[in-house]
């Protein structure tokens, strides 16, 4: 259940009655009217493709009939109506099933769920330690995928590869498992390997670790972050922070900063010492659990 939704793939148009509130139907469509989406938003992407996120109405207009288009030039386009349980896709000449899944799981679902304010996303890898979700945040190529993979190899359930869906309820911040695919090394348009041991339950976030690159000989140390520094580091790891939600997102991050333990961990720049980093985090997790 990616992001707590059942995905149902259909290869033709279909009408569904009694749609479960947590189901999404992914439907092929045989035509696409790009001109129906004249309002284009900036969307940063690092997959060496020309992508566009567009909508059919001006952003400052409130209307339940808003539709969205996410298109990857020459590859694939997705469309959906705000709040709808259906996502339509249209294959262009360079599409493959693998690429389709990549864009759907890693990009389109987070975009849809962000825009509809179902979840707030963080740029983080996440695993469970003794059943408690912990998040790893770092800039791109900052080592979070490698560390996440190490935890998976050590038997910890994967929560997310790099887009952490979160939400707040009664002052508690929860992590929502994404999908079972993990990419230990970043290559463009790669879905990742299917991780058999994936987390399935929504749980309160136990701690967030911000990875700091250390030198080869540095000690692996953890220090708590406070105040503006904490906010600043979380803000750097913002994900799916669309311009039209910026204020809301900042308020969310502020509440997150005030309610969740955030630590900085100095990670020695030496892969051979990953076990040391692993051990330090596991031990630290245990210690804050008993606080």
């Amino acid at each position, binding site marked *: 259940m990616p992001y707590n939704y059942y995905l149902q793939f259909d290869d033709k148009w279909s009408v569904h009655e009694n749609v479960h509130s947590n189901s999404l139907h992914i439907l092929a469509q045989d035509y696409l009217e790009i001109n129906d989406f004249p309002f284009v938003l900036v969307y940063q992407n690092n997959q060496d493709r020309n992508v566009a996120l567009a909508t059919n109405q001006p952003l400052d207009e409130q209307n339940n009939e808003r539709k969205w288009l996410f298109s990857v030039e020459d590859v694939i386009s997705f469309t959906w109506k705000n709040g709808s349980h259906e996502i339509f896709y249209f294959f262009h000449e360079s599409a493959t099933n693998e690429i389709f899944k990549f864009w759907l799981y890693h990009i389109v679902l987070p975009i849809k769920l962000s825009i509809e304010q179902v979840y707030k996303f963080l740029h983080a890898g996440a695993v469970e330690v003794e059943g408690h979700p912990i998040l790893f945040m770092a800039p791109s190529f900052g080592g979070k995928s490698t560390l996440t993979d190490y935890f998976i190899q050590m038997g910890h359930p994967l929560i997310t590869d790099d887009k952490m869906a979160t939400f707040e309820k009664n002052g508690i911040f929860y992590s929502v498992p994404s999908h079972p695919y993990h990419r230990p090394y970043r290559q463009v348009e790669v879905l990742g390997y299917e991780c058999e041991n994936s987390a399935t339950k929504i749980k309160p976030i136990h701690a967030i670790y911000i990875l700091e690159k250390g030198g080869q000989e540095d000690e692996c140390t953890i220090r708590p972050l*406070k*105040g*503006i520094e*904490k*906010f*600043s580091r979380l*803000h750097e790891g913002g994900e799916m922070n669309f311009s039209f939600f*910026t*204020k809301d997102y*900042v*308020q969310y991050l*502020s509440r997150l*900063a*005030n309610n969740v333990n955030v630590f900085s961990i100095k990670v020695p720049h030496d892969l051979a010492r990953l076990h040391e980093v692993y051990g330090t985090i596991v031990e630290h997790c245990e210690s804050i659990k008993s606080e």
Partner: protein
Amino acid sequence: MREKEYFIPSSVLLQEIDNELLIYNSETGQFYSVNDTGAVMWESIIQHDNLGDVIDDVSNVFDIDKEALVNDLLKFTLPLYEQGLLVLVKKD
């Protein structure tokens, strides 16, 4: 009653994190933190709309001379205007 001199744009957001005050400008994506003294000044700036009232207010809090405070307040507010966190009211 003094004239309105400034206003805080709706793009400016204030958040308190671990007792530190964060001022965020959603137009520029920039955020700023202020120290304890700055936080008192900012809180007063929010409550009022002219620097005369702010000086009266802050001088009571810190029990200091108003003239001495004027310089500090100008130093504090100049970057706020420059960064778009405060906007001067245009006079006709």
